[in-house]
C-alpha cells in the first residue's frame, strides 16, 4: 500500500505494484519505511543531469541493429502473408517513410463477432474485390465487338451483390458503353459503331481491376485466433473506413502505417505506434532494448505534432548548429545554405565541440562556475 505522503511523489505504476505486493494488514510505521525506501530507490534510478540520453539511446538501438542485418526478410509466422521485419522495417519506421513496404492492419472485433461469428464473411466483405475476382470469364466477342463477362454467382452472393446491382455499378465506372445484364453475365457494347477492337481489348484489361465491393486498399484478409478471440489481419490499410464499421472494436484496432495513424487518431497514437512497431521488430529478433530508448526516439520524431524521420530532411534539419547538421550528411550543402543567411553556430552541443576539440557540454563538461558579484 502506498502511503498518502508519497501519492504525488511516486509514479502510478509503482504505487499499483506496491498495493499488490504489500500485505493489507501491514503496520503504518512499516508502510512508511517501505515507501521511503522505494522512493529513495526510485530517485536513484532517475537520469542525472548531464547524462547523454540521446547518444545512449542511439547506441542502444544501433548496436543490436548490427546483429540484425543478417537475419532479415523472413516471414513473421502469419501464414500466407509476407511481412517486412528486421532492420529494413526499423529503417522504414525511423526514417518516417511515407510509403511503407508492407502496410498491415489488425482489426479487433466487437463481442459476438470476436467469438468467431460470421468471421469468414466479415473478412471477405472487408477485402477490396475487383471484377476479375467475381468473374468466371472475361472475353471479347469479336464478331459483334462486345465484352462478355460470365459471373461467379456464388461469389456475388457472399459479397451481397446481384447482377443488376453490379451492372449499375459498372455503368457508372465506365463511359461510352451500353451495359446489359443477363442471368449470370454482363455484356458491354460500345455506343459508337466504329469503336476499334484495340480499344475494346484495352477496356477489357481495365475492367479486370474495377472495384466492385469491400473496402479500398485492403488487398488481403486473414482471420486468425489470438488467445480466445478472432482478429482479422489485413494486408493494405484503410484505418478511416475500417473504424467506421459497426462490428469493429475501435479501441484496439490498429495499423502499422504511422502516417495513417496520425491522420485518423492523432500524434499521440502515432508516437505509441512507433514505440510498438520498433519494439515488435526488436523482440522478434530476440534482442533486448530498453523501451525508454525507443520512447525517446519516438518523442523526438513526434514532438511538434508532425512526424519527422531521423533523416537530414527531418529531425536533423531542426538542429540549431550548422556544424552538427553538416556532420550528418551532405556537409557542403548545409554549409552553403548557412552562409547564405549568415547563420551563427553557438557551439552548444556535442559534435561541434568534438570538432573543435573543446570540452563537450555533457557529463563532467556540463557544469560551470557562476559567481555573484559582491556589491561594493
Amino acid at each position: 500500500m502506498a502511503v498518502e505522503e508519497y501519492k504525488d511523489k511516486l509514479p502510478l505504476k509503482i504505487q499499483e505494484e506496491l498495493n499488490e505486493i504489500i500485505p493489507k494488514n501491514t503496520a503504518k510505521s512499516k508502510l512508511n519505511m517501505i515507501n521511503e525506501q522505494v522512493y529513495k530507490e526510485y530517485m536513484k534510478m532517475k537520469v542525472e543531469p548531464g547524462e547523454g540520453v540521446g547518444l545512449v539511446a542511439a547506441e542502444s538501438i544501433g548496436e543490436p541493429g548490427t546483429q540484425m542485418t543478417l537475419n532479415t526478410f523472413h516471414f513473421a509466422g502469419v501464414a500466407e502473408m509476407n511481412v517486412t521485419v528486421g532492420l529494413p522495417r526499423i529503417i522504414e519506421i525511423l526514417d518516417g517513410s511515407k510509403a511503407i513496404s508492407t502496410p498491415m492492419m489488425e482489426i479487433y472485433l466487437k463481442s459476438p463477432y470476436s467469438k468467431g461469428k460470421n468471421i469468414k464473411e466479415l473478412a471477405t466483405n472487408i477485402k477490396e474485390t475487383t471484377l476479375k475476382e467475381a468473374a468466371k470469364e472475361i472475353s471479347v466477342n469479336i464478331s459483334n465487338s462486345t465484352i462478355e463477362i460470365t459471373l461467379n454467382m456464388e461469389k456475388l452472393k457472399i459479397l451481397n451483390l446481384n447482377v443488376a446491382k453490379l451492372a449499375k455499378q459498372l455503368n457508372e465506372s465506365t463511359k461510352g458503353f451500353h451495359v446489359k445484364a443477363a442471368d449470370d453475365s454482363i455484356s458491354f457494347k460500345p455506343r459508337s459503331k466504329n469503336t476499334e477492337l484495340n480499344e475494346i481489348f484495352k477496356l477489357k484489361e481495365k475492367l479486370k481491376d474495377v472495384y466492385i465491393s469491400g473496402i479500398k486498399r485492403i488487398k488481403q484478409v486473414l482471420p486468425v485466433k489470438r488467445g480466445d478471440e478472432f482478429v482479422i489481419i489485413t494486408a493494405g490499410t484503410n484505418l478511416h473506413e475500417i473504424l467506421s464499421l459497426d462490428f469493429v472494436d475501435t479501441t484496439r484496432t490498429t495499423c502499422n502505417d504511422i502516417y495513417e495513424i496520425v491522420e485518423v487518431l492523432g500524434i499521440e497514437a502515432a508516437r505509441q505506434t512507433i514505440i510498438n512497431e520498433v519494439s515488435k521488430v526488436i523482440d522478434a529478433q530476440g534482442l533486448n532494448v530498453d523501451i525508454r530508448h525507443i520512447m525517446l526516439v519516438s518523442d523526438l520524431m513526434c514532438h511538434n505534432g508532425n512526424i519527422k524521420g531521423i533523416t537530414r530532411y527531418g529531425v536533423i534539419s531542426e538542429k540549431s548548429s550548422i556544424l552538427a547538421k553538416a556532420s550528418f550528411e551532405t556537409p557542403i550543402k548545409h554549409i552553403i545554405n548557412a552562409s547564405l543567411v549568415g547563420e551563427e553556430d553557438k557551439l552548444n552541443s556535442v559534435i561541434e565541440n568534438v570538432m573543435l576539440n573543446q570540452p563537450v557540454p555533457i557529463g563532467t563538461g556540463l557544469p560551470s562556475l557562476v559567481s555573484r558579484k559582491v556589491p561594493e
Partner: protein
Amino acid sequence: MTEVYLNSKFIGTVEDSTAFVESMLSERRKSKFSNSLNIFSDKENDMLFIEASKGRLRRPVLVVKEGKSLLTEKHKAQITKKEISWGDLIDQGIIEYLDAAEEENAYIAFREGDITPETTHLEISPMIIFGLCTSLVPFSNHTPPTRVNMGSKNQKQALGFYAANFLLRMDMDVSILETPQAPIVESIMHKISNYDKHPSGQNLVVAIMSYKGYNMEDAIIINRGSVERGIGRSTYFRPAVAEELRYSGGLIDEICVPDKDVKGYRSEKDYRLLEEDGIIYPEAKIKEDDVIIGKTSPPRFLSSLDEYSLASNLRRESSSTIKHGEKGVVDFVLITENEEGNKLIQVRLRDQRIPEIGDKFTSRHGQKGVVGLIVDHADMPFSASGITPDLIFSPHGIPSRMTISHLIELIGAKVGALSGRFIDGTTFDSEPEKALRDELLRMGFRENGTETLYNGETGEMFETRIYIGNMYYLKLRHMVANKIHSRGRGPIQLLTRQPTEGRALEGGLRLGEMEKDTFVAHGASMLLKERFDSDRTVVPICETCGLLAVYDEFKKRSFCPMCGENTEVSNIEIAYAFKLLLDEIKSFGIYPQLKLKNKY
C-alpha cells in the same frame, strides 16, 4: 551417320560410332597411337570428338574390364620389386589419362569394392580427389570439408625446414623451425612428398581440457618446460639491402661511415657497429635505430648545388637502418654487384623467436589458436605415469566444428608414440580407429584415450578423466613480435597533424567515431578532449574580422593580414583539423567568422 571432329575440325563421318570408339580405345591401350589422344562420344548430338591438342587437363585412372581392374596382384608385386614403372602401366593400357570430355563417357568407381558391370574405370586411390596439402591432413574423411580445407591452408603457413640451403639464401621474411619432426600420424602423401626431409611441425603431448580459462575462444596453453626444451623455436630472417646507385652527372652513392657534416647525420652511437667500409660486422647485436649499412647520397636536386657551399656537406645521409621495433643479430654479410655493375650489399639479420603469448599454433585439422598462457612445468597437470602435456587445447573447439579427425589423430599418435611406429592416417585408407583403440588397450591404457590427471598446483586428482595423447602441431608464421605496436607519442602526418597510422610508421590504434561515442555516453568530457588533443594547436585570431591572424616571431607581435596591426588578437586552442576545415570553407568562398567570447 556420326560426325567426327578432330581437334574441333570436321573430318568425316563413321557408320557405327560405338564400335569406332571401342576400337580406338583398344588401339590406344595397345599403344598403337599416342596415349595423349582422347575421344569423346556425344550420343545426344550424334558426334565424336577426338582431341590431341595441347592444354587439356587430364588425369590418370585405372582401366576396368568385365568388372575387374586390370591392375592385378601380379602387377603390384612387380611394382614393389621395381620391375615395372608408371610408364609401363600406361604402355600396357592399365592406366590411362582421361580429359574432361572423355570423362563424360567414363563410369569411374571410387574403390575396388564399388565396381559394377557398368564400371569402366577405377580411381588409383580415393585420396586422389585431394591436392597435395589436403592429402597431408590425416583422417580427413572424418571431418567436414570446410575444416579440412582450413587445415590444408594452415599448413601452408607453417614454419618448417623449407629449404636445405637456407643459410646461403637471401629470402625475404622467412623463418626456420629449429627442431622439426616428422609426424607420427602420416598419410601416404607424406611418403610421396618426402615430408620427413622437410617437416614443418612437432609432435606434442596434447590434453583436451580447460586450464583456469586461459584457453577460452581458441586460445591454447603451452608448457614453459617444453618451451625451454625447444618446442616451437624458430629463427626469423630478414635481409637489409643497400646499393651504390649511379645518378646523372657522374654522381654516385657511397657506402661508408658517413662524415659528421653530412646532411641528416644521425648520432655517433648509431654508427658504432659499422666497420671502416661502412658495413656492419657479422654477429653484431642490433636494436632499434642502429645503422646496418652506412651510405651517403648526392644532393637530390642539382640546382641546389650553388657556388657558396662546399660539395661535401651537401651529400645526404641514406643509410639502411633496422625497422622500428625490431631487433636481431647480423647473420651474414654479402658484398656483390648487381646486373648494372653497381656495388650491392646484402646483410641478413637473424632473430631467434621463442614461443610467447600471442604466437599462433595449429593442428592439421583447421584448429588454429593463439597461445594464451605459458605455464610452468611444475604447475601443469600430470598423469599417474608422470606425463605432463606440452599443450592444452580447449574442448569447446570441438562440438561446433566437428573435427573428429583431430580427436582420432590424438589417439593414433598416442599409439604410435607408445609402440614406436608411424601410423597411417591416409584419407579413406587409414588404419581403422577400432584397431588403434584395441592396440592402446593392449598397451595398458584406456581404449578411449582418457587418463586420470592430477592438478599440477595442488596435486589433487581431477574428477573427470582427461583425453590426452600426442598430436602433430605446427607453428604458424604469424608471430606477435612482428605485429605488436602501440604509441604514446610519435610522428604526425604533415597535412593534418594527426598521428600516423600503421605499425611501420610508429602509429597507434585509432580511437574512432564510435569509440568517441562511448566517451560521450559516459559523460567523460575532459577525457575525450585529452584523447583528441593529438592535433591540438594554438592559433592567433583577429577579433575584428574573426579570421586567422599572424604572430611575427621577430617583432614579437601579432597582426591581422586584413585589419592590420590595430586590432585585438587573441590566441585560441583548437584542433588543427578544424583550422583545416576553416581553410577549406574559405576556399569555396564562404567567410567563416570566429566570434570570440571569454569562457569565464
